[in-house]
């Protein structure tokens, strides 16, 4: 994405410093509120991490207000989250268990932390048999605070507010490939993405269907056991037989290909846009979410810059003609910031398109950034503290 940044040039000034500061004030207060409990805990490293994150998140929001741009500043937060979450998580695993792998004894104990990516896999067995096909605990325990009830409650609350914007503001994995996508100077597989993108973006749906059916039939979380690339940077079932060895190989291959290599080559979020079934699942919630990106057909000149810029191929020529994005739009704001004619705008459903885009953007950002600060910010604070040698959950 560096080339888009240079194409857009240096950040513009959209709003005066005073007004920007005024608009940032609620977010600053929210950040202080969210991290006050961290200051009450002992440990200078955690205080430092919390203070750093308050400044970081507030600073980025101020820049969003000052420049009128969203994508550039959101990406800084998101990439930081993607790279720092594994650091803090792995540090805690090594401190607690001495290893990233999760043993069968821990699974039998219900000590596996619940990850939101499992959610589509467990729905059918939970609905029909009241069975959770995951080796975790329904309620929090001393050894497993990330209980199933807590994580599902968190995911559901976030999803009701964010819809698919979860994938741009809350997912602590997506920032890894967004970072790699921004690393390369130019695209090398542009023609491949242009030609096959319309079909590639359907693959997550096929994987979702496969995972949902397969999990219901095999009564195991198929995505977690076989297809999750992020096992490579978090925790994975300890290799104890041929099956788990094959699984481990698959995780590494998927991570290397989808999260590192292809984003470097295509400058797209290939895992998110062309593979992740949870992303496809989250797309369904875009139907009920009130915030979206629309296109003012009076201003659009069909230059396709938005299509080129979109990190997940959530735009097609047809959808742009209709003035909309596709269902898998993550509301990252890349197209809005890239559009030179101001045709791509933030929008609240039911209101006239392009009438008050900045109002729509503000309404969207206040809620979204508040949740990003609460969730992603706390992960960043803990990771910073861990890096400084402090593990608050010891």
């Amino acid at each position, binding site marked *: 994405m560096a080339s888009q940044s240079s194409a857009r040039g240096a950040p513009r000034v959209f709003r005066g410093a005073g007004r920007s500061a005024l608009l940032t004030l609620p977010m600053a207060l929210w950040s202080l509120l969210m991290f006050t409990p961290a200051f009450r805990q002992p440990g200078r490293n955690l205080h430092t991490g919390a203070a750093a994150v308050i400044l970081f998140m507030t600073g980025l929001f101020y820049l969003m207000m000052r420049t009128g741009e969203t994508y550039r500043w959101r990406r800084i937060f998101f990439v930081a989250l993607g790279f720092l979450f594994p650091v803090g998580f792995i540090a805690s695993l090594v401190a607690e268990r001495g290893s990233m792998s999760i043993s069968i004894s821990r699974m039998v104990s219900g000590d596996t932390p619940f990850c939101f990516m499992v959610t589509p896999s467990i729905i059918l067995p939970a609905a029909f048999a009241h069975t959770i096909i995951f080796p975790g605990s329904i309620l929090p325990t001393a050894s497993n605070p990330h209980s199933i009830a807590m994580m599902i409650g968190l995911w559901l609350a976030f999803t009701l507010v964010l819809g698919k914007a979860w994938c741009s503001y809350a997912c602590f994995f997506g920032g890894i490939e967004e970072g790699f996508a921004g690393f390369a100077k130019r695209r090398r597989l542009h023609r491949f993405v242009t030609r096959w993108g319309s079909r590639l973006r*359907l693959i997550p749906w*096929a994987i979702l269907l496969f995972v949902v059916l397969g999990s219901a039939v095999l009564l195991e979380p198929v995505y977690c056991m076989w297809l999750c690339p992020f096992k490579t940077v978090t925790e994975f079932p300890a290799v104890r*037989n041929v099956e788990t060895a094959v699984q481990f190989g698959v995780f590494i291959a998927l991570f290397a290909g989808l999260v590192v290599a292809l984003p470097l080559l295509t400058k797209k979020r290939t895992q998110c846009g062309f593979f992740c079934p949870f992303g496809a699942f989250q797309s369904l919630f875009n139907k009920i979410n009130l915030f979206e990106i629309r296109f003012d057909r009076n201003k659009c000149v069909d230059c396709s810059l938005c299509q080129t810029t979109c990190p997940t191929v959530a735009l097609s020529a047809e959808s742009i003609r209709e003035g909309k994005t596709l269902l898998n739009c993550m509301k990252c704001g890349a197209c809005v910031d890239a559009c030179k004619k101001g045709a791509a705008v933030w929008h609240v459903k039911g209101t006239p398109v392009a009438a008050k885009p900045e109002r729509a953007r503000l309404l969207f950002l206040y809620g979204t950034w508040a949740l990003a600060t609460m969730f992603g910010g706390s992960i960043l604070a803990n990771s910073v503290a861990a890096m400084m040698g402090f593990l608050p959950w010891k």
Partner: protein
Amino acid sequence: MFPIPRSDSSALEALVLGLTTGPVCLASCGPVVVPWLLVQPQGMRVHGRQLLLFLGARLAGYLVFGAAAWLVGSSIPREWTSRSWIFGGVQVLLAAALAVYAAGWPRRRCTHHEPGRLVQIGERPAPRIGGALALGFLTGINLCPPFLIAGVRAAQLATLFASLQFFLLFFAGTAAWFIPFVSLGFVRRTPALVTVARMAAVLLACWYGFSGITNLMGKAFYG
């Protein structure tokens, strides 16, 4: 060992066995049926017809197995419950059928040459009748556990007719669980949905192929 059951009690037993083990049959066949039905045109009538063809072919598979079970005459080995070469072979054939169906073979005659593609997803129509029959028959002879239980019971019956009757009623019990699939006819068909269903069929083909090959190798992958 076991008293040969009277025909009327075995009829009821077959029906009850089918109804109670239907969910397991659904587990075996559902992943095949769902993407396949999603590729069919929209409409309850079309779906009903396709499902009938599928179930008819499945019944043919049941009856073939029922006749074989009676002719064999002895209790089917429990090892056949899983990890047998028959089970593995059927799964590999099912994987091949799913992959071929998803790829849209056989090709229609074209008036112009199309560039060759490795996998044709979403544009060519899937062969409907052939697909229904092939998939139905292969799922019908797929040796899922309830199927084998039914086979053991049928083999103990006095006549071939009784064995076939047992399997017919067992089939009726399991087929009742497939009725809700007709509701997929309500789902609006778009090219994207059809493409997704074909892609899912390819993934399922990979899964069945992997499972079949491991069964043929005699490997048991337990969690």
